[in-house]
């Protein structure tokens, strides 16, 4: 303490001496230069303000293997893309940022590969980033103001549909000009799509906070030539995923909404939109089926309902025996590798840290697991 006192007493003495000598100009000069040197010391680069991370390994070659989209935290986080090469076992994380030096934005919902291009749909950032999937080099973006895009389905080299979470519409995108052609109004949240001939089948659902009386939970049938909704069929609560099987039948997984909990797996004739089969899941708490996937020849369905289930398209009842029991995991995403006949699932842990991917064979035996980005959601094969 006394040393501090001495320092200040010394400073005060110096000051008094300076006043006597009337050298205030000198002090000001001195000050100016010390301030100037401090400015140099104290300045940092704008990059240093942004969040920092150890980006990890990136192979740079992504022709073979699968992509994993990691959503990233809503609003303040950023989504990333990971790549896994099953042949070499190499895992590359943050591959978009490592190639391009900037970020994808947040809630990377999905990625669709089409004609040497990858379309990365970034939900909360209201845009679609276009990349070269072989190198992850950024090629441009399609920005749709006020949108919350979810999934993209290319209909041809020229045209794609993009669904939306909140806007009550889907978008028609020009794939050559990378621009928005038109918006088609719907009566709810548009989600997944599949195509048969010129028809596009699109699930329409409702968010849990959507209290409107009009509109419903539907499967929309859209004429891919005119972009008009030509027909629809009412479904149980929460239709999300739609896939097409080997016999050209549509399967729609309805998650039951979050409250009513009457989830169902529905088989639909795409031509008549007639419901041919409906499997109801139990009403127990925690029953929340999601992520309906199809195997390579269209004969088996895979989905999550706490555990991973496999379902034969010709079965008369729901398979009650899980293919992979959750065993402490909270599976969030699911994928089927049609080349290697393998099942992928991911766990986002607490959703505010890097998640994990698990790979299983068709008997449900774990092959391996690896760490990816924050909130892994979709697998792109």
């Amino acid at each position, binding site marked *: 303490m006394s040393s501090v006192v001495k320092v200040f007493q010394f400073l005060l003495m110096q000051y008094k001496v300076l006043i006597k000598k009337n050298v205030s100009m000198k002090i000001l000069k001195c000050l100016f230069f010390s301030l100037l040197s401090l400015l140099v010391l104290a300045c940092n680069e704008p990059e240093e303000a942004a969040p920092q991370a150890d980006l990890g390994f990136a192979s740079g070659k992504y022709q073979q293997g699968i992509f994993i989209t990691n959503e990233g935290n809503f609003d303040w986080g950023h989504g990333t893309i990971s790549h896994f090469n099953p042949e070499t076992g190499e895992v590359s994380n943050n591959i978009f940022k490592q190639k391009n030096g900037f970020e994808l934005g947040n809630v990377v919902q999905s990625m669709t590969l089409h004609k040497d291009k990858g379309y990365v749909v*970034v939900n909360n950032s209201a845009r679609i980033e276009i990349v070269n999937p072989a190198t992850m080099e950024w090629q441009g973006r399609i920005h749709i103001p006020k949108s919350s895009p979810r999934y993209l389905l290319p209909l041809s080299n020229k045209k794609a549909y993009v669904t939306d979470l909140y806007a009550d519409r889907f978008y028609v995108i020009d794939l050559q000009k990378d621009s928005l052609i038109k918006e088609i109004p719907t009566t709810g949240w548009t989600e997944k799509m599949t195509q048969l001939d010129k028809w596009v089948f699109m699930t329409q659902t409702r968010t849990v906070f959507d209290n409107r009386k009009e509109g419903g939970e539907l499967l929309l049938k859209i004429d891919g030539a005119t972009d008009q909704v030509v027909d629809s069929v009412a479904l149980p609560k929460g239709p999300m995923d739609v896939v097409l099987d080997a016999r050209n039948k549509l399967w729609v997984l309805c998650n039951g909404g979050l409250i009513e909990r009457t989830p169902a797996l529905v088989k639909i004739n795409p031509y008549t939109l007639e419901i041919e089969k409906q499997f109801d899941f139990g009403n127990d708490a925690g029953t929340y089926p999601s992520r309906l996937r199809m195997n390579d020849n269209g004969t088996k369905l895979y989905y999550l309902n706490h555990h991973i289930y496999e379902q034969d398209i010709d079965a008369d009842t729901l398979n009650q025996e899980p293919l992979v029991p959750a065993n402490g995991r909270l599976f969030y995403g699911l994928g089927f590798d049609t080349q290697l006949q393998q099942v992928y699932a991911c766990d986002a842990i607490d959703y505010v840290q890097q998640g994990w991917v698990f790979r299983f064979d068709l008997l449900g035996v774990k092959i391996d697991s690896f760490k990816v980005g924050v909130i892994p959601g979709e697998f792109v094969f």
Partner: protein
Amino acid sequence: MKKLINTLLLVSGFITWGMAQETDSTFYLQEVTVKENRIPPRVSFKNTSIEKEQLRENLTASLGEILALKTPIFIKNYGAGGTATPSFRGTGASHTQVYWNGINLNSPMLGQVDLSLFPVAFTDEIEVNYGAASLLYGTGGLGGAIQMNSKVAWKKQFQLMASQSVNSMENHISNASLTFGNSKLQSTTKAFYKKANNRFDFVNTIQPGQPTWTNKHAQQQQHGFLQELSAKLGKKQTLGIKAWYQQSKRDLAPSMDKKEEFAWQGDESLRLLAEWQLNDSKKNLSLKGAYIHDKLEYEKELNNAAQPKTSYSLSNGHIYKLNGIANFKISNQLYLNSGFKWDYDEISSTSYKDLDSGEKTNAHQNTFDLYTSAEWLPVPSLSISLLFRQQWLDSERKPFLPSLGMKYALWTNATFILSAKANLSRNFHAPTLNDRYWYPVGNPQLKPEEGWTGEGGLQLQTASTHRPWHASYELTAFNSVIHNWIIWKPAISNLWRPENLREVHSQGIEQVLKIRYQQNNWRLDFFASASVVKSENQKPYDDLDDSVDKQLLYTPVSSFQGYIKVKHKQNTLIAEQTAYGKRYTQNDGSEWLNPYYLTNLVYGREFSLGKHLLSLQARINNLFGYHYQSIARKPMPNRVYQLRLTFHMNE
């Protein structure tokens, strides 16, 4: 970095010495603060206050801004003008309790307050209670509490103040206050108006080509009005009525990942408080009744239609409070203090619905709280505090909270006093109404977050003689474990719900050094506060959870706040410095924000106009234009210039 700070402090020291030469010969009268003649409550716990003079210097600041400068509380800013929430001693935002004249202002829905919405001008005194020091006022302050109090001077007076400030972000703040009265009746009226564009340029490093963007979707318009009336009933009793109305509407600025956001938030509050007090030499009784109406609105445009679809949420909180306190002086060695609190909160919100019918319902809670405490000075050098608090929430008995503290004067001579403190307490924080009732994920079965905190410290200060120097140094170490820490995490799919998942161990060391030199027309103040706080999750959520032993999100381990102030006659020069360490933005530490250092320079000059006073203040915030973020990807301003003119009538 230490070097940098040292250099900085030294240089700013020189600046102050240099600049202080420009003074004239008008004699400056030091303001005298009258201390109340009663034993300070809970001396064995850590309490600090922000002096009135500092409140005046930061008249146009928000509560969050002044706390960031003067206390170790870390303030998270969601961008310029955005929500500001505290992290006190490594705890969460809802673990800091904010009181206005003893009335808790934390939202029963969120459990927290937005510190950006409280103008400093509406308070006469800010006190900070560290950790369990807050138990005297209520539960839930696991990190601590912030008190905003009004002061009444019973004298014949007529004072008017008007102030206008403008800064380079196109922010304008106007303040006015009128105080008048006599020894029996006093009235204070305050008004506040803020129109802020929060406009600044920043380099967007997460976009292709690193473009320079302008932060322009962050407008805020806020106004407030405060009326305080106090009356003396006879010699011993006083009656006080306070009414505070405030409204804010602001655009929610987008993150750096996009240029535009089409969302706004409205906050409106009405706070009414009536208080009766009886003071005499033996006792101090007080009874307070309060009504608070909080309205919170949020709206976001969701499509490009001519009449865009929006998502809109609205909540209205009606909060009724009754507080009673009785202080008795049994002898010069023994003081007893007891009290009760009764709170009834009723919230109607678009987010609260009946789980079965899906129909909108109101959430309400009834809290009753009793405490009793004693301050005992068995010998002059020893002081012992004991407190017991018991709360019932909706008739359910909550954890019993004991608290024991001791302060001992170890060593005293003509120059220095050295004293030691130690205390141990239990505290808890009840789940918020959102935690319990948010549709459809609210969890009524949640347990309160609770734990024990121990604290020890040493204080060295110079004896209060008429020497020009006064210095104090305080070292405090604390250790606390909080069980059943609530976090929101998806239970199924992407639907987040609150669960008692964590056990958080928080421990730290705080050091505060204050030096004041005062002689003739000169006054020098030096203040430095350096803290190291480790706050880590101890309990893995599952076998892959990598958050264990990692510092909690957005919680710096080390932080520094300091200033040097030189006053010479009517001139004041202040150099302020804050520094915060690395902060994780992911629970596993895989992403983080770099440390940041902010330097502010303030020059103030007062012009005496007979009985009146005109003061001019020029301020440069973030002098060196340091690039930083408080919340990831929310841009923060670089250098900001601010000018303020204040007129005091009959000062």
